[in-house]
């Protein structure tokens, strides 16, 4: 029966629909797995609420009511998406350790409409700032494949939960690679949709022009299913796109014959780990065997992406995190003092070191005298980076790259070296800067540690991205 925990969401949906298993029974099994797990994947669990929701679905099904195809499926979501109720939304931070949201995020509303059940809130780097899940006020997440290695971040908890079969799939968020990089480290599928594809209403903001919510799953089919549930316009998010939502699953079986796949040379530098290169080359061979045409392209401004990202993202973060001041919610310092001291003490006590570092950088680059040299400059470089993609997509349908420069590093290895940690995102941040969609798919392993290949597509062309990803997953066709 433990095989059921390893099933794809699609397979579970069929079993639920056929009445072979009840949602309650399914949720109970996953909740038991969560309870027994020692990787620190979850910050909070909502067992009672989840089982009550499961019972409602089971009762409706027993009555013969027509239910959405996803009804009864459980999942976990990263703890930066608000869920109404007592269970806090913490963002992995002490400053929100006791914040009970009075409303549901848009994606949570969509999940509920689809009959899906949130089992709990996944651990994460604090306020989504990090690439290792070592920056959580609730302790690090241990890597699912090797416990002394990081799961990646910032959606480390969501990703490890899927890899460990604590939930069939999960939602994460991605600002500079926070879905794709942990997906690569943990050997699962992780997709960042086009900017604007999924509403950010109820996603606690880190970098508002970069953040997107996306699925983490065992299979491309499951990722497509979950994306279909959460995607679509929401007028409460002014950056939400009015683009019509296609059936993301429609082209999964189409293969890659006739597609043009670009390999950007800047993502395959001489220094790239030979083993990672070998795994990605194998994916290229698979695509060739499937009838795709491989084209070498160039994205010349790639080397400036990390610099541009860490100016833009920290600037936006400094503004977004100004609201955490101890006044209306969250941690308030008990040290005596005037209003200013209350702000300073509450924030300094409540925010971890990485968050404080990024707030400081962001404040600096936006401050008078420095705005033009840093923030404005970075935004202009961002335009050039975006143009690189637009140019490349004139001659190819998708791009293929490694997701990360190395497999998972050890817990503690990079935590005292901020710049080295930031360089982990070298192949992922460009995608957020340009707003294009990208997915990481498992691409074998190096000495037992998973490696990911990244497929990048044109704005709003998740269908082609998923189509290529499915082809890689299914082996050569």
């Amino acid at each position: 029966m433990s095989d059921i925990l390893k099933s794809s969401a699609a397979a579970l949906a069929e079993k639920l629909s056929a009445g072979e298993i009840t949602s309650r029974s399914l949720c109970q099994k996953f909740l038991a797995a969560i309870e027994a797990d020692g990787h620190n994947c979850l910050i909070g669990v909502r067992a009672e609420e989840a089982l009550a929701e499961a019972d409602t679905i089971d009762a409706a099904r027993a009555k013969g009511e027509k239910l959405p195809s996803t009804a009864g499926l459980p999942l976990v979501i990263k703890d930066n998406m608000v869920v109404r109720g007592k269970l806090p939304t913490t963002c992995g931070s002490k400053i929100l350790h006791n914040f009970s949201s009075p409303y549901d995020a848009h994606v949570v509303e969509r999940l509920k409409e689809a009959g899906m059940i949130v089992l709990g809130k996944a651990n994460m780097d604090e306020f989504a700032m990090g690439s290792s899940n070592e920056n959580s006020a609730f302790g690090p997440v241990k890597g699912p494949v090797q416990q002394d290695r990081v799961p990646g971040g910032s959606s480390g908890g969501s990703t490890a939960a899927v890899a460990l079969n604590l939930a069939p799939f999960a939602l994460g968020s991605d600002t500079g690679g926070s879905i794709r990089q942990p997906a690569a480290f943990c050997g699962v599928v992780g997709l960042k949709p086009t900017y604007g594809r999924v509403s950010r209403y109820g996603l606690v903001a880190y970098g508002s022009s970069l953040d997107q919510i996306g699925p983490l799953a065992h299979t491309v089919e499951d990722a497509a299913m979950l994306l279909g549930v959460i995607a679509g316009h929401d007028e409460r998010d002014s950056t939400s796109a009015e683009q019509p939502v296609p059936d993301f699953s429609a082209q999964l079986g189409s293969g890659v014959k006739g597609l043009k796949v670009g390999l950007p040379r800047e993502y395959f530098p001489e220094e790239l780990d030979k083993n990672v290169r070998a795994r990605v080359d194998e994916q290229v061979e698979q695509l060739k065997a499937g009838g795709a045409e491989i084209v070498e392209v160039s994205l010349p401004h790639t080397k400036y992406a990390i610099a541009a990202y860490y100016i833009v993202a920290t600037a936006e973060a400094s503004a977004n995190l100004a609201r955490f001041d101890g006044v209306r919610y969250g941690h308030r310092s008990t040290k005596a003092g005037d209003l200013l001291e209350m702000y300073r003490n509450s924030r300094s006590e409540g925010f971890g070191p990485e968050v404080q570092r990024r707030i400081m950088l962001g404040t600096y680059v936006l401050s008078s005298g420095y705005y033009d040299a840093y923030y404005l400059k970075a935004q202009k470089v961002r335009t050039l980076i975006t143009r690189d993609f637009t140019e490349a997509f004139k001659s190819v349908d998708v791009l293929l790259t490694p997701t990360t420069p190395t497999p998972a590093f050890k817990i503690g290895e990079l935590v005292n070296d901020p710049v080295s940690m930031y360089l982990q995102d070298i192949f992922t941040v460009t995608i957020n800067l340009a707003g294009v969609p990208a997915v990481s798919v498992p691409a074998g392993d190096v000495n037992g540690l998973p490696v990911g290949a990244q497929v990048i597509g044109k704005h709003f062309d998740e269908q082609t991205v998923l189509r290529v990803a499915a082809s890689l997953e299914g082996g050569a066709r």
Partner: protein
Amino acid sequence: MSVSKDEVARIASLARLELGETDVDRMTEDMNAVLAYVEQLKEVDTEGVSPHSFLAGKATPLQPDEVTKFANRDEALANAPQGEGTFFIVPQVIE
């Protein structure tokens, strides 16, 4: 460009953060490491380049200027570290 410890203290004040002496040293070091790294953006010719990238040309969507009520106000107020009715209590603001 690099930051001095004094500037770091000034920025901390702007950011409403309290940095102790050792923290200021560490923060100065860390910020300078990042600032040194991002210096390379100077190399890029951005003459005539717009800072608005893929979001360019999108008009900000507007909404009707109507007052709406948030239904779960009591739940929101329940998060207040110190509150009374519909007020949040804070240290004295005006002398």
